């Protein structure tokens, strides 16, 4: 998301300064959005930007521990929303680890005490942030589907090989229909994600709807697949040794990271309303 934000909102000098290093891997950047429990919004953004200095807190921020550059939402003294870039290697920035459900992906709390920073653009409003999140949603959907597919595959393998009452547990409809249900959800999620990818790549006016659809489908598929993968494994699936837990943790983390299911359901219907309005206008003209 940091790169997407730079591409969309940085000035030429900033792009020249950061993008080549990001591309080469010399520079690691991360993006910070939330500060408190609840959905991110313009109102909930309190991080203050004044005289080129940031003051406040962002959490949980992914990978801030290894990043050198942070792109973050902030507000100026007039309450105007901004996107700022802040290099993290300065004493006015304090980074402490925050443990999450998914310990395989590090998160941090980042505290700014008059930390040097610069604005990416002078005129952002929340719809710009939402547009960034739309783009992120499509990419997240593909990661979520990857987790969901892996969970389904693992569950199928186990169901074929594990025996109970003298036959493979995958021959019981309770298990096989559970797995078929996971397959159906994964398949629909993938089809929706293809459309999301097309809308993203072609900068379609349908992106908001396509992104929300891909995101909601991916959340639902990945939560179902990862929880029922554990269930299919029975007791063994609940042990530390089996990989089931990683998918389960990762799926939930991803489902929370850029807005919850309810948030994107709401956005999806906004997309439908917008689409209907466009169709209506076209019919009239």
């Amino acid at each position, binding site marked *: 998301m940091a790169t997407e934000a730079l591409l969309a909102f940085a000035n030429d000098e900033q792009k020249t300064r950061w993008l080549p290093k990001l591309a080469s891997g010399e520079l690691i950047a991360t993006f910070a959005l939330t500060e408190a429990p609840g959905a991110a919004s313009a109102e909930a953004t309190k991080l203050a930007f004044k005289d080129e200095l940031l003051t406040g807190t962002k959490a949980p921020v992914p990978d801030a521990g290894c990043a050198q550059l942070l792109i973050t939402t902030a507000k100026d003294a007039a309450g105007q929303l901004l996107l700022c870039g802040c290099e993290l290697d300065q004493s006015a920035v304090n980074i402490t680890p925050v443990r999450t459900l998914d310990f395989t992906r590090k998160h941090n709390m980042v505290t700014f005490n008059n930390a040097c920073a610069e604005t990416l653009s002078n005129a952002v409003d929340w719809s710009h942030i939402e547009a960034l999140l739309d783009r992120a949603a499509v990419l997240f959907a593909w990661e979520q589907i990857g987790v969901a597919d892996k969970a389904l595959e693992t569950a199928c393998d186990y169901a074929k090989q594990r025996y109970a009452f003298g036959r493979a547990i995958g021959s019981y409809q309770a298990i096989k229909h559970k797995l078929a249900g996971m397959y159906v959800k994964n*398949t629909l999620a993938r*089809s*929706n994600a293809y459309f999301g990818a097309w809308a993203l790549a072609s900068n379609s006016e349908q992106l908001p709807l396509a992104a929300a*659809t891909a995101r909601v489908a991916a959340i*639902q598929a990945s939560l179902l697949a990862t929880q029922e993968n554990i269930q299919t494994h029975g007791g063994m699936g609940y042990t530390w040794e089996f990989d089931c837990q990683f998918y389960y943790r990762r799926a939930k983390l991803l489902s929370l990271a850029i807005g919850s299911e309810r948030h994107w359901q709401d956005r999806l219907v906004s997309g*439908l*309303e917008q689409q*209907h309005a466009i169709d209506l206008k076209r019919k009239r003209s």
Partner: protein
Amino acid sequence: MDFNDTPEEALFRAEAAEWLKANALTAEETRGLTPLAVAKLWQKRKYDGGWACIGWDKQYGGRGASAIERVIWDQEEGKYNLPARFFVIGQGMIAPTIMAWSSPELCQQFLPKLASGEEVWCQLFSEPAGGSDLAALRTKAEPHGDEWVINGQKIWTSQAHYADYGLLITRTDPSVPKHAGLTAFMIDMKAPGVEVKPIKQLTGESDFNEVYFTNVRVSDAWRLGEVGQGWQVSLTTLMNERLAIGGGGPGADVDLAIKIAQQIQINGRPAIEDSAVRARIADYYVLEAGLKYNSYRAMSALSRGELPGPENSIGKLVGAPKLQSIASFCMDLLENYGAVWDDDHDLYDGLAQRSYMGAPGLRIAGGTDEIMTNIIAERVLGLPQDPRADKGIPFSDVPTGGQ
């Protein structure tokens, strides 16, 4: 997969649209005609214009169109409210079976009249004791010279009351295991000994029939496949059924739900602004859009020459319960008025109510939800079969619970 037309596809689309615009039936032409008569009129017009069964070989009345062209045609034709359902079984399911299993002479005899809409076909597979267990059928065919004599009963036969011909699966050998003793025939529905009785559905309508066979004679030349190959023949039909059904005509959908939710109020605000309503609509849209893009992907696969696989079962498996649920939801939006289903009073053409009553049938016809789920589990995911009490034993010895 691309969600836009290529230049060639756009050209084809324009050609189709133009022909449709010039030739679509007008209200004047159809006034006073029965739905079947309208359908036949439209089909004949398409046939004469070279737009019937466009995927078929030219010799049988088609134009050898590609899978993608078929999709484009369907999309364009779908923009008009033109009758189609009468020919879905004949053209979509039985014709491919005839092509696969019959002689060029019989193809030439039957297919052009199928394409032109002159002759209607029905599919005579299901039986009372069979249901989901299609191969458990008992209708007997016994050889008699170069003819066969048919006795037995079929059920759930759409269109039997006006069909000219039927594709019939019979049991020719009860002493071998279930799937091995079947043989397929084409039969003349007007032949002596064929009796059709309509079944009244819970909607009060009759879309299906019982068909009784009493000493019906059929020539051995009308046999499809070898004796004992009936199951393989029926699989060709069923495989094409998965492609042919699915859509299922107009029904309650996200568009209807949004329309109602924009007009109904909850707590003094349009229902569409209610967050719970939005969450439900979003969930339905995820299913609708997923199925739509899924079928695009299936068409892409078809256009690469792949056969319609078991993964196409998803359309009906997801679509039918979704129809039931969204119909119920649309009625809920109307609150007390949602129960009203009366030409003089109802709103939105009774679409929600009709869908609510129709959906249970869709969840059963052409393979129940449970059968579809089993197909996905076994044939897509490769999970083991259920233990089979009927496997490898003579059909006559399979337990039936006294039915």
